[in-house]
């Protein structure tokens, strides 16, 4: 398969008053044409920074420390400003996190899309562009007559669709979707997710889907990448990763959230707080919160390596067995007994002594 995008050891730091924030640290992956990659992680883990560095839209205080971003074989960071401007949207488009805010409130939605088309395809006439927008609107399920309306006249879901239509306007080869459904209600979210998948399959486009919600990623991605504190911890085919999460963080993320289907299970809690990226922990960045951590984890940074076909991992102590779902009985154990509850509180003391948001990390494993 053709490789569309390749990140090689991408390392991006932000300069702040307090020092350098290591927002992206040595991230490498590649994406094939037509493939969809899901990036999952908590807020502040560097997902959005990756999206922005792919568009070369980082704020002024960002600095590319090392690494390359190869798009269709071209190093994006070797291009001039004008070249990258022309490449944006034409080749790489983006669906923004806050759709409500990513439309200019004072221009009609249709015009904002037409403007993008006319900018990148100057030979197109305005009429042709209008026709194209019309068909895009149909594609995403907005009545074409609403083209002339202003964003404030749209509902949240419609705005999100309009933003998707806008992203598709120049038929880019890669779309980056940055949490496009976070602010939406489940039913709308479901519809949008399905539409995105539909369209992507129809026009065979690559996509990077960024979300903090493992479930959403599971629904839309071929390949899943798990990020933590600016680093990629695990990356692999969705089926593999979800069936056999190797990194403890992946595992915790998957089971930290109650599910609606199946039996009620206990929740895995991840103690503590994500690290401060001004001074991330030595060794594995997840080790202070990891129940599997050993002394080695605190000292040696795990190597990013392929463990199976297309399945990459950075961990000293990967979970080797089939993942065990935490079971309901354990919930009952902590829930019922008073002893257990007070025990939890005493444990909290110890955890907070380390600093941060301690909570009952009573053995989930």
């Amino acid at each position, binding site marked *: 398969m053709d490789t569309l995008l390749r990140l090689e050891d991408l390392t991006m730091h932000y300069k702040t*008053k307090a020092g350098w924030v290591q927002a992206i640290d040595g991230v490498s992956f590649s994406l094939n044409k037509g493939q969809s990659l899901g990036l999952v992680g908590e807020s502040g883990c560097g997902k959005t920074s990756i999206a922005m560095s792919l568009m070369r839209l980082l*704020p*002024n*205080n960002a600095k590319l420390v090392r690494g390359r971003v190869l798009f269709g074989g071209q190093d994006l960071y070797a291009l001039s400003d004008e070249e990258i401007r022309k490449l944006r949207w034409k080749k790489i488009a983006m669906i923004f996190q806050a759709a409500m805010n990513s439309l200019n409130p004072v221009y009609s939605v249709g015009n904002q899309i037409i403007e993008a088309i006319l900018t990148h395809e100057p030979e197109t006439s305005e009429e042709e562009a209008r026709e194209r927008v019309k068909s895009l609107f149909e594609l995403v399920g907005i009545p074409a007559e609403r083209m002339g309306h202003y964003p404030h006249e749209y509902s949240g879901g419609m705005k999100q669709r309009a933003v998707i239509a806008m992203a598709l306007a120049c038929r880019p080869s890669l779309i980056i979707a940055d949490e496009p459904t976070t602010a939406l209600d489940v039913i709308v979210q479901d519809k949008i997710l399905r539409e995105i998948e539909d369209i992507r399959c129809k026009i065979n486009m690559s996509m990077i889907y960024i979300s903090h919600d493992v479930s959403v990623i599971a629904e839309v991605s071929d390949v899943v990448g798990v990020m933590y504190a600016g680093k990629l911890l695990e990356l692999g085919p969705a089926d593999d990763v979800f069936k056999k999460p190797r990194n403890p963080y992946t595992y915790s993320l998957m089971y930290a959230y109650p599910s609606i289907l199946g039996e009620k299970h206990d929740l895995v809690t991840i103690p503590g707080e994500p690290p401060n990226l001004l001074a991330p922990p030595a060794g594995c960045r997840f080790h202070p919160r990891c129940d599997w951590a050993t002394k080695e984890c605190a000292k040696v940074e795990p190597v990013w390596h392929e463990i199976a076909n297309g399945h990459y991992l950075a961990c000293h102590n990967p979970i080797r067995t089939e993942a065990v779902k935490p079971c309901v009985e354990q919930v009952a154990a902590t829930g019922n007994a008073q002893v257990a509850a007070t025990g939890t509180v005493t444990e909290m003391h110890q955890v907070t002594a380390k*600093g941060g948001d301690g909570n009952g990390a009573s053995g989930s494993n």
Partner: protein
Amino acid sequence: MNELAPTPGTGSASLTEPLWKIRWKLTRRSFAQSWEIFRESRIGMIGIILIIAFGIFGALWPIMINTVWDPMVYDPVVGFDPMSMHPSPPSAAHLLGTDPIGRDILAQLMYSTGREFLLGVLSAVITVVIGTTVGTAAAYYGGLIDTVFMRIADIILLFPFIPLLVVMGSMVKLSFLPFAVIMGVLGGFGGITIILKAQALSVSVRPYIDAARVAGGSDFHIIVSHIIPNVLPLSFLYMMFSVTSAILSEATLSFFGVLNIDMSWGMMIHTADVAGYLFDFARYWWLWAPSGLAITLFCAAFYMVGRGLDEVVNPRLRKR
């Protein structure tokens, strides 16, 4: 984050220090934090330095007149130096020269500084106290109170201050304090009310106001302990801008000779103007430059501090 914690307590129900001391420390710390942000603003720092410089300059007046200067010669209002022709250019005796009626410019400048401070700060404090109270009340209670005060504000916005004060000043000579009060009151019911009300309104719909209400807080409690403290930084910011407008108005009205103020920077220029020295700018520069510059720098200083504060108060303006 942990290094900010006070001395590790034992978790027992006794504080290691008296409460006021802790609060004092906290105030100092939050002040220090604001100061850190403020220091980022070059403009704000220039403003602060200027204000301090003016403060020192103004404080020199009582010292000089009580020690070095002969009040007969250097009194800013009635002083006269019979030894020289007036207006005399800067010399060793009169560092900034004398005005057309023989008074020492430097002494006038120093003497006025303190009074300008008083005028500016007094009227600004009145403005802000009124603006904050009215704005908060209007925002919190809404309804009739809101309508009445906002209409008043609309109307006051219609008043061109300077012409109005010219009219008033020419009919009843306004002296220093009444003028400061009028400026303060007019300012307080005008534009600032609208801005502070908007701020109070945005504070009053915050969830923590609901939380306070659920906790059982009365309206008074909510206004005094939640809304006003959160509006105050903005009030303080607008106080800076009010100082500027008060001083400029005073100077302009003094220039037109409609105020009953015996000495101010505006009066100094007025004196030079009526005596006919204010058109050959280069030659009689000492008659207008010190006072004109003082007005501009003084106003600009407060304005700059205001802009610096803006970055503290409004984090969205901060540099990333």
